[in-house]
């Protein structure tokens, strides 16, 4: 991952909060003094269909806000992996919601990070915060936003929210971050070997 710019595609089912997840990352980047952009997909989608957005965080002014070759894909459901897996830059990262996506033959030239986001969110008592678990996890890898930036920015994102909602959002960030910190995720080569039975 380049230290200057991070191009991210975030994808999932409508209702999983991927557009909001993108906004959390973009707004956090902005408050951390970075250049940011956020573009949603807004096609004629059906209920239960897929949604995605493209986010760029950058130390320099962003020329094109379009993301064709993402450094990172955050996939919340299986169709998102199918759609974006091949677009990830070699050496990039696929962070996926392993609660809904089974381990499979992924590319072996990218870093794989599996986060059981739904399970973690359910442990926290609210399955809706699975997206924010991913935000916490992403902050562990990002060179442009930190966990502390996320925490500091949260009040701007959920204005007027009740304290318990704020607390559960913070807990989701923390759980996601800790999950990566404790290295419970797997690296590409390893997953690939497991799959191949090597």
């Amino acid at each position: 991952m380049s230290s200057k710019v991070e191009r991210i595609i975030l994808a999932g089912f409508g209702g999983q909060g991927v557009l909001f997840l993108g906004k959390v990352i973009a707004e956090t980047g902005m408050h951390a003094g970075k250049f940011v952009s956020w573009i949603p997909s807004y096609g004629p989608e059906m209920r239960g269909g897929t949604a995605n957005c493209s986010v760029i965080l950058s130390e320099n002014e962003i020329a094109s806000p379009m993301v064709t070759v993402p450094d990172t894909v955050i996939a919340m459901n299986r169709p998102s992996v199918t759609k974006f897996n091949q677009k990830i830059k070699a050496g990039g990262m696929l962070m996926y919601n392993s609660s809904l996506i089974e381990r499979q033959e992924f590319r072996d030239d990218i870093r794989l990070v599996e986060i059981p986001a739904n399970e973690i969110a359910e442990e926290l008592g609210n399955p809706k915060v699975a997206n924010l678990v991913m935000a916490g996890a992403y902050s562990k890898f990002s060179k442009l936003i930190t966990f502390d930036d996320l925490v500091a920015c949260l009040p701007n994102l959920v204005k007027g929210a009740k304290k318990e909602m704020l607390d559960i959002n913070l807990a989701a960030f923390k759980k996601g971050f800790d999950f990566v910190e404790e290295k419970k995720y797997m690296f590409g080569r390893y997953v690939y070997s497991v799959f191949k039975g090597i």
Partner: protein
Amino acid sequence: MAKVLMKGNEAIGEAAVLAGCRYYFGYPITPQSELPAYLARRLPEVDGVFVQAESEVAAINMVYGAGSAGARVMTSSSSPGISLKQEGISYIAGAEVPCLIVNVMRGGPGLGNIAPAQSDYWQATRGGGHGDYRTIVLAPNSVQEMADMTIAGFEFADRFRNPVLLLSDGVLGQMMEPVNLPEPRDYDVNSKKWALGYKGSDKTERNLCSSIFLDQDELEEHNWHLYQKYQVVTDLFSKGEFKDFAVEEHLCDDAEIILVGYGIISRILKTVVEKCRKRGIKAGMVRPKVLWPFPTGVFERLAKTASQFLVVEMSCGQMVEDVKLSVDGKKPVFFFGRTGGTVPSDFEILNEVDKLVRPD
């Protein structure tokens, strides 16, 4: 004021309020619906009026009315809706009523689709409706410019008593970027001497705003008057006060190939220029920020130094005609376009540049 992360559509709405616009009339259509949604909430907070009209035709005629009464007023729509508004825009231009019209372009012709496009360039820059008239056309390329050009649009409209069109597209309308919002400006509804209900020192003036001139000589005189006004506007944008506002140049001085694009395309072209430079290709970019009057001067000048031009649009080739007219056959002008809602990637454009600079 601190930066705010906003959608392009919302930035237009907030900027309009800050510019003193208190009247919005419109009808929802993707991909610009966030704009009326924003103003439906925001305008009542500042004692403004928001009306979701029964149709686009009704909305533009409400704009005609409010504008005639001296108010800062706007409407917005996306391509098919703007087509519906053309009759009203023609009347407004004929009656010389200032207003701001926003087009967040989507794929056409016909119902087309809701994806981003730039295929309304001809409609925007050639008048659009019937009769000899022009609208000033501004083309932002970022959320910040969506806000800045909204404010500039109201100023131009008032100064020249002419409708101003903000020509944007689905990407710019939907995307979020940080915006620095300007300070609010005071606007006095009773500041236009020609407006209906204008109150002079001791009485209300008997004014009339109309585009009807049944007498042939009167209409001819009026049309030449409009023509003169358009000449003044053209001069101000090409060599006068707004010369620098009208166009952005990027690394053009030593460029052999000049890439030309407006709106969201210009952002992609900037990335292409960076990549070209890394590969040793001397590329530069010209971005018209004002589409009418078209910044012909910059092309006349660069036709002397550059060896070729590549115009990139999300259409089958519309602005390329203005570039060709400006270059006037002195250098070859090529075109690359994607349409139907597809935004070209930097890779495909780079590929086109490669074909032109390394033809073998």
